[in-house]
């Protein structure tokens, strides 16, 4: 077969969102790749300049549909840095518990999409079913299923509902049991290992140079987790280990995310049991001072950064969002070239695409 360009997207089952991957193939082998994003560009950075600081929280929620809580939290971290606001300790623990629930839900969504990509409908079904457990907890906490509008400057919107501690501990127990089952399902499958081992290699140096962050970076052998290395919130008081793997292939990325779910369960347990009594919401000033605020958190997909410039009014002068997926997608050709068309789904699925945050 002659060389040809294939457009995968914007409507393609592989994309899980709205982007376009152009690959040049020779037979079934990829010899060139060129991702194209921007189909979901909503101009959030511009919109935010016209809204007050509080109004932006729901918009920040809609940055990423997979992990919306972590984005509104990131926004709050950035604005708290700008305002110089201390967060109430109880609110910090509630936030951490909710964030880790969100991380598990996001990873389960990734797992569902990944399994469906590789052809295992059963993985999609099981992950989606178990995701509901954590979605229910978050719904009890904040009142909605996907976009929570939960964090506030210096606190959170609501206190935890009754029996939240018991329910989250139960959910963690359930999840750990299910995770073992998943490991049996996937790693016990010869086909899964055939499809993943040695596919989509990303070397440590390349990963660092190309700005890949989060689980994909840790899967390449760099032990860098913002929760551990530049702790925000109360992560330094909790005991956990960032999951790493040294191979840098699809299997490593899978493994790192699976391990992260175990770690998240651990964190939720600690956060829920250690939660101090006290207030959970505070009054934040309406107007931010002149200056800049920086928030850097470990999003489920990588390093999310927000840079807020205040000018003394109640609206931000400029809000810049660093999306981990935007940078990670640009590294995709490095991983894709030389593999088969069928590996595209394994590689791109393993990166956990979320185009909402990438296109902004």
């Amino acid at each position, binding site marked *: 077969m002659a060389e040809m360009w294939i457009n995968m997207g914007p409507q393609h089952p592989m994309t899980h969102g*709205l982007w376009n991957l152009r690959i040049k193939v020779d037979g079934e082998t990829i010899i060139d790749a060129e991702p194209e994003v921007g189909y979901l560009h909503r101009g959030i950075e511009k919109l935010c300049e*016209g809204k007050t600081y509080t109004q932006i929280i729901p918009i920040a929620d809609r940055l990423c549909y997979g992990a919306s809580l972590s984005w509104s939290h990131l926004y709050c971290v950035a604005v708290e840095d700008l305002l110089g606001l201390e967060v109430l300790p109880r609110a910090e623990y509630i936030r951490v518990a909710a964030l880790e629930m969100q991380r598990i839900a996001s990873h389960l969504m990734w797992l569902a999409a990944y399994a469906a990509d590789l052809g295992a409908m059963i993985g999609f079904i099981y992950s989606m079913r178990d995701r509901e457990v954590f979605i229910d907890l978050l719904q009890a906490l904040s009142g909605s299923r996907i976009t929570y509008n939960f964090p506030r400057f210096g606190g959170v919107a609501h206190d935890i509902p009754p029996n939240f501690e018991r329910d989250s501990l139960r959910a963690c127990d359930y999840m750990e049991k299910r995770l073992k089952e998943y490991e049996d399902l996937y790693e016990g499958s010869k086909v899964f290992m055939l499809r993943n081992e040695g596919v989509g290699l990303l070397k440590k140096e390349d990963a660092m140079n190309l700005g890949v962050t989060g689980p994909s970076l840790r899967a390449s052998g760099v032990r860098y987790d913002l929760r551990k290395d530049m702790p925000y919130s109360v992560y330094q008081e909790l005991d956990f280990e960032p999951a790493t793997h040294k191979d840098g292939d699809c299997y490593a990325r899978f493994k790192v995310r699976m391990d992260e779910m175990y770690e998240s369960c651990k964190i939720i347990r600690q956060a829920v049991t250690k939660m101090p009594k006290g207030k959970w919401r505070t009054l934040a000033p309406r107007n931010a001072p002149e200056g800049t605020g920086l928030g850097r958190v470990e999003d489920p997909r990588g390093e999310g950064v927000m840079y807020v410039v205040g000018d003394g009014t109640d609206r931000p002068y400029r809000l810049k969002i660093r999306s981990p997926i935007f940078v990670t997608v640009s590294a995709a050709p490095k991983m894709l070239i030389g593999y088969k068309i069928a590996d595209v789904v394994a590689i791109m699925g393993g990166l956990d695409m979320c185009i909402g945050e990438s296109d902004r």
Partner: protein
Amino acid sequence: MALRSKDFLKWCDEVLEGILRKSPVGSGIDYVTKDFFNWATRNSLYYLHFGIMCCALEMAVASAPRFDAQRMGVIARSTPRQVDILIVNGPVSKKLKPALRRLYDQMPEPKWVIAMGECAISGGPFYNSYSVVPGVDQFIPVDIYIPGCPARPEALIDAFIKLQKMIKDNKKGLLTGK
């Protein structure tokens, strides 16, 4: 006589069309089959596997065990040639607009469009953005609107039921269109 095969085919078409569409034969066939075809159409709705934003996630959840849209015969297919419903589940940016219109055009009749969530209805939180089309009904006819940001899976299933009612209410014969 210069009757070529093409002319012959055309003549056959015309005759058949005359018999089927304009004569009582067509009406009779339609009268007999209308209910049956309508029943089939409304009970087997395939939607396009096409996710835009948050609501796409809820669309996926709707076909997962908890909400289980499949029990009503609602299945996702990946290619626009094989589907009946286009679910627009997110804001349509100006870059996406031509692609979405093309997807709609590729779908075979009869086809329906569900605007899921505020973004698809009116642009939602992004209604005044420079790159978002405020509402998908500006360039595609929409049949069902689902409010919500994001719309919940129950709402999507409700939309399918509403769509079934809608199809049931305007029964049309295949041949005569009556």
